[in-house]
C-alpha cells in the first residue's frame, strides 16, 4: 500500500531535530532506519503528519569508548554493531542478539536506537539492553536526561521517550571477559522471537561470579530474570547449577513458561562455555 501523505524534514543537528518536533506537534514522528516504521506507514497503521529523518545526524552514529562504559550512538546500524570491536570485546551479548535481528538487508538500514524506541516486545535488543543495565540518553527541549533501561521500557510499544524527545545515545557498561549467548526460538527464517533469552555470565576460577539474564517476548516489555541471576551467583559453573537456576525463569502462561526455562538453560550453558 501507499502511505498517507506526510511532510519530510531533514535536520542536521539534534537541536534542530528537537526544534522541528516541537514545531510540527504531536503527530510528527522521527524516522531512523525506517525498517519498522515504513511497513507501519504502508499498512496505514500510523499516519504521521511529518517525518523527521535523523539519518543525516552523524553525531548519533558510532561506538565510543567512555572509560567504564561504551557510548553507542542511537543511529548506529545493526550491521555496524555486529562488526564493532568494542562491542565484541565489552558487550558481546549485544552483538550476538543483533546477529539474529531480521535479515542482512534490514540490518544494513535498521538502527540500535530505532529498535529500542520501537519497543516491540518481540524485538531482540530490548532484553540485552535491560540485562546489561544500559542507560538511555534522551534529548528534549529542556536538554538531555538519562533513563536506565529498567525504567525506559514502559509497556507494549511504549518507552520513556516523551513526545518532543529523541533518543540520542545508549550507555552500556563494559563486561570484559564475560561469556554471553542469545538463545532465540522462532519457527521460520526472519520471524520474531516466540521467546528468547539473553544471558551474560562472569566465571572466575570455575565459579559464577556474576550473571545477567533478560527475557524477550514474555510480557509487554523485556523482563529481567532476577531470580535466575541470584540463584547462579556463587555457584560452580556446572550443568547442575545451571539447570537448577534455569527452573526459576518464568513467563506467566504455560507454554511460554516452559520455553523460558528451557531456553534459559540453553542460553546459560552456551554463555558459560563461551
Amino acid at each position, binding site marked *: *500500500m*501507499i*502511505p*498517507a*501523505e*506526510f*511532510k*519530510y524534514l531533514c535536520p542536521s543537528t539534534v537541536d534542530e531535530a528537537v526544534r522541528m518536533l516541537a514545531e510540527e506537534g504531536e503527530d510528527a514522528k522521527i524516522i531512523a532506519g*525506517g*525498517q519498522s516504521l*515504513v*511497513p507501519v*506507514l*504502508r499498512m496505514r497503521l500510523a499516519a504521521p503528519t511529518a*517525518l523527521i*529523518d535523523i*539519518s543525516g545526524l552523524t553525531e548519533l552514529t558510532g561506538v565510543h569508548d567512555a572509560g567504564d562504559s561504551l557510548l553507542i550512538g542511537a543511529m548506529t546500524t545493526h*550491521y555496524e554493531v555486529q562488526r564493532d570491536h568494542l562491542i565484541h570485546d565489552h558487550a558481546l551479548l549485544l552483538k550476538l542478539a543483533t546477529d539474529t535481528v*531480521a*535479515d*542482512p*538487508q*534490514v540490518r*544494513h*538500514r535498521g538502527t540500535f536506537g530505532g529498535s529500542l524506541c520501537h519497543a516491540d516486545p518481540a524485538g531482540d535488543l530490548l532484553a540485552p539492553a535491560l540485562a546489561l543495565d544500559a542507560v538511555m540518553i534522551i534529548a528534549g527541549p529542556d536538554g538531555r536526561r538519562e533513563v536506565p533501561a529498567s525504567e525506559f521500557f514502559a509497556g507494549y510499544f511504549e518507552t520513556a521517550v516523551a513526545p518532543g524527545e529523541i533518543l540520542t545515545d545508549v550507555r552500556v557498561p563494559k563486561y570484559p571477559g564475560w561469556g554471553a549467548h542469545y538463545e532465540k526460538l522462532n519457527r521460520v*527464517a*526472519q520471524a520474531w522471537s516466540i521467546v528468547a533469552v539473553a544471558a551474560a555470565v562472569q566465571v572466575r576460577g570455575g565459579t559464577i561470579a556474576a550473571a545477567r539474564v533478560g527475557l524477550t517476548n514474555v510480557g509487554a516489555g523485556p523482563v529481567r530474570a532476577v531470580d535466575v541471576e541470584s540463584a547462579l551467583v556463587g555457584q560452580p559453573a556446572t550443568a547442575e547449577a545451571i539447570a537448577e537456576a534455569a527452573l526459576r525463569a518464568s513467563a506467566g502462561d504455560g507454554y511460554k513458561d516452559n520455553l523460558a526455562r528451557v531456553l534459559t538453560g540453553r542460553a546459560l550453558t552456551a554463555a558459560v562455555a563461551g
Partner: protein
Amino acid sequence: MKISVNVDGVTYADEVEPRLLLVHYLRERLGRTGTVVGCDTGNCGACTVHLDGHSIKSCQMFAVQANGHEITTIEGLARDGRLHPVQEAFRNNHALQCGFCTPGMIMQAIDLLADESDPDDETVRKGLEGNLCRCTGYQNIVRAVQDAAHRMRPGAGPKMEQHSDEHVTSKQPVGGE
C-alpha cells in the same frame, strides 16, 4: 521534494513526493523494472538493491531517503554485454524457475560474497535469509552462490584480465641498504 540519486552510474535529479517508495521510483520514474515488488511487506527481498554498496530492501525506504546516495540495481551489473559472475552462475546452475525472486537473490548474493568469499551451505542460507523463493527449494540457488564464489576467486577470471605483480616485484632491490 527535489532529490539527486545516482542509479547504476547515472545521476538523476527529480522532484518526488516524500511518500514515494524507492522501489516505485526505480520502476515507475526511471523505468528500471528489473527490480520487482514481491510481497509488499518487507519480507520477500525481491526488491533488494544496493545503497552505497550494501544490500537493502527498496520497498522499505522512501526515494527521498536515497537523496545524495548511490543505488545499484540488477540492471547495473552487466559490463560491456557480459553478465556479472553471479548472474552467470545463476543461469548455469538453474537457480531459477519463475525468476521473480532472482533480481533480489542475485543482489543479496553479491552482498554476501563481499563479506564471505568462500561461504559454506549454512552461510549462504543465512545470508539469503531475507529473500524468499517459492519454486526452487533453494538447492540450486545455494549451489549457484557457491559456484559464483569460485568464479570470483582470485585468479579465476579470464587470463587477459589477470594482473601479475611480477614485473614490479622482480625490480625490487634484494637485500642491502
